[in-house]
């Protein structure tokens, strides 16, 4: 069965952002209080630390129809829990390498370090990521067809 996409309607991606509570979530708040706009296609999930992000969550998001997943954490060396983002960095490097290896567009996943002071970077990162994912179009390779479009 071929799913016809409405060509007239502009493609709006669905993007999940995992933000650590101490740096990136605060950075997102700063972007807000500085009134720096970025598209509404990204929704943020607050986690205590980037090391809390399980690969299962990322795959789950793609399964349920996300078109991109971005993970934001404190800059290496600045982790509130001292070492969390170092582990996250290794895990995500390997996981994203594997997704690429399976032929899933690597541009759909990203890790970005955003500090609590980098509201502007947060907004710019989100805009750029949304732009990239919009160009890629809908995620078809890692989607569960039982979940509705």
């Amino acid at each position, binding site marked *: 069965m071929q799913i016809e996409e409405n060509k007239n309607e502009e493609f709006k991606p669905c993007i999940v952002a995992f933000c650590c509570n101490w740096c990136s979530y605060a950075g997102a708040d700063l972007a807000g*209080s500085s009134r720096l706009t970025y598209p509404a296609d990204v*929704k943020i999930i*607050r*986690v205590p*630390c980037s090391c809390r992000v399980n690969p299962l969550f990322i795959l789950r998001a793609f399964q349920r129809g996300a078109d991109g997943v971005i993970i934001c954490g404190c800059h290496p060396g600045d982790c509130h829990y*001292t070492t969390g983002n170092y*582990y996250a960095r290794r895990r995500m490097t390997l996981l994203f390498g594997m997704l690429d290896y399976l032929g899933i567009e690597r541009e759909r996943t990203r890790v970005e370090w955003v500090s609590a002071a980098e509201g502007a970077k947060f907004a710019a990162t989100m805009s750029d990521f949304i732009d990239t994912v919009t160009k890629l179009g809908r995620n078809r390779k890692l989607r569960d067809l039982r979940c*509705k479009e």
Partner: protein
Amino acid sequence: MQRIGVFVCWCGSNIAATVDVKAVAEAAKGQPGVVFATDYQYMCSESGQTILKDAIKEYGLTGVVICSCSPRMHEATFRKAAESAGLNPYMVEIANIREQCSWIHKDMEVATEKAIILAKAAIAKVQLNKPLVAGESEVVKRALVIGGGIAGIQTALDIAEAGYKVDIVEKQPTIGGKMAQLDKTFPTLDCAACILTPKMVDVAAHENVTIYSYSEVVDVKGFVGNFTVQIKKKPRYINENLCTGCGACTEKCPMKKQPNEFNMGFDKRGAIYIPFAQAVPKLPVIDADACLMLKNGKCGLCSKICEAHAIDYTQKEEIIEERYGAIVVATGFNQIKPTQFEEYAYNTCPDVVTSLEYERLMNAAGPTKGHLQRPSDGQRPKTIVFIQCVGSRGDSCREKSYCSKICCMYTAKHAMLTKDHYPDTDIHVFYIDIRTPGKNFDEFYRRAVEQYGVDYIKGMVGKVYEENGKVMVQGSDLIDNKQITIAADMVVLASAVEPDPSARSLGTMLTASMDTNDFFTEAHAKLRPVESPTAGVFLSGMCQGPKDIPETVSQAGAAAVKVIGLLAKDKLKNNPCVAACNQSVCNGCSQCANVCPYGAITYVEKEIRTPEVREVRRVAEVNEAVCQGCGACTVTCPSSAMDLKGFTNRQIMAEVDAICR
């Protein structure tokens, strides 16, 4: 199924101007479990909170979602309000529709749609929330101070004065630290010994203070409020209870050729010695590497002479275990020996000394009784060159990258004290920048230039060499744009300070983080400068970064206040959002303990009963008082036995589902 209430805040026009709050509340009503939804102008206000409390009671809510500003702003407020209405505070979730929605979007339709999705995610999460109770742990009312220099002494005194027991562990045979070696102190030029030694006596005499001198911390276990520390007491070979401190033994010792560490090796001491006259405790110590009796069983002279029979050659090292509620690190610093800089000829020329060595040469209680003599021939130096920034502020592997902070001031001090004693001395100071921020500091330095006529030369020394009995100093004078050579009698190097080498292993034991220079890092550079990020560990003095004495003393006091604040509590409330292990599926593989930054995970052999098995297995156990809730273990665990309360796998996946659907 939970009974959930949803409260949408207008935040005046902050939210309501871009988000259709009524539509959000309406959409929430259709969500599973939602029994009540409303909107209000200011949820955080008194009346807003009343609406929340009333609804909890009226509708028997078991879960609450507030769509408002960032949880970083008012999560605590709403949790408190819910608690006062009888709801567990951890049954409250916040949907951030201000910072992450209304403030960043302009289109009402887009912002409302996003706010609804964010509300749905929070509702989905709260469906899976479980009431959490913050655990409590007991506080041991005793503090440990590691290091007995001025920082440690001051911290211990302040804690003891507040009525708490405090122990000092000092690795040297006496407390006093570097300050005991100093002559006078800037900017007031009062004598270091005169202000330090009374404090040393006070702290030793204080009923709440116990001093473990000649001892080291060898193991630290536990967590804030309840540390268990092992202290190794090195043998001094003296029975402390019998010794009167008369010092007769030190005079009779035949092994008189040992370099005296306290005087930077400029004179000699015996194998049995008291470090200096005002040492606390005033007890001799036997240097096991030098003592004939300990080396080959022959001599025993000190034992024969001791009327108190206090000499005990059989003394063994002892391990003392003690529990503490708080630990203060005050391990201090060392001045580096600039041996790697051949251009300063420190290795080859005896008349090139470091400033700490110069300090001893000037000191009335020092090896020369305060008469300035140059080390090579005992002559009084007529021309002295001081070189600043030796080994500091560098970029190559030889130097420290930081400014050592105290050198500008003590060099001015050295110059003035020398001129005071011997006004005919020529003094030249090579400097790069003069850094004197501090009360009366710049005035102090200006005095050296204007009143004492000290010659400050802007430039650095390139080469120091000996010629015809003089120490030749070749450097540049950048103001005159000249290369100059000064024939000096003595050169004093203001070499960099570095953290005491014992700090590194201590940092590992305490799981307290350190920077690349081995200085301890503070919990927040500005707002929590005397606390380590590890709860219950506090920082005092140079171990945190270069400091002068006034700064060290004020930091020591600040650390003491933090300790007192902690010890004043009977119980500590823990963060309940911590890791928990489902032991029935745990493999006991130790991977989670490997990534835990706090050592919160231990393993126990436990009988596991499930419908499938009944056996004794090695399983992980989380110490809730130590766990800070980062979640590193939860991802490392392949069987997902580890989960994080308040941020469980299922909760986060429920949020993902709500967002993606």
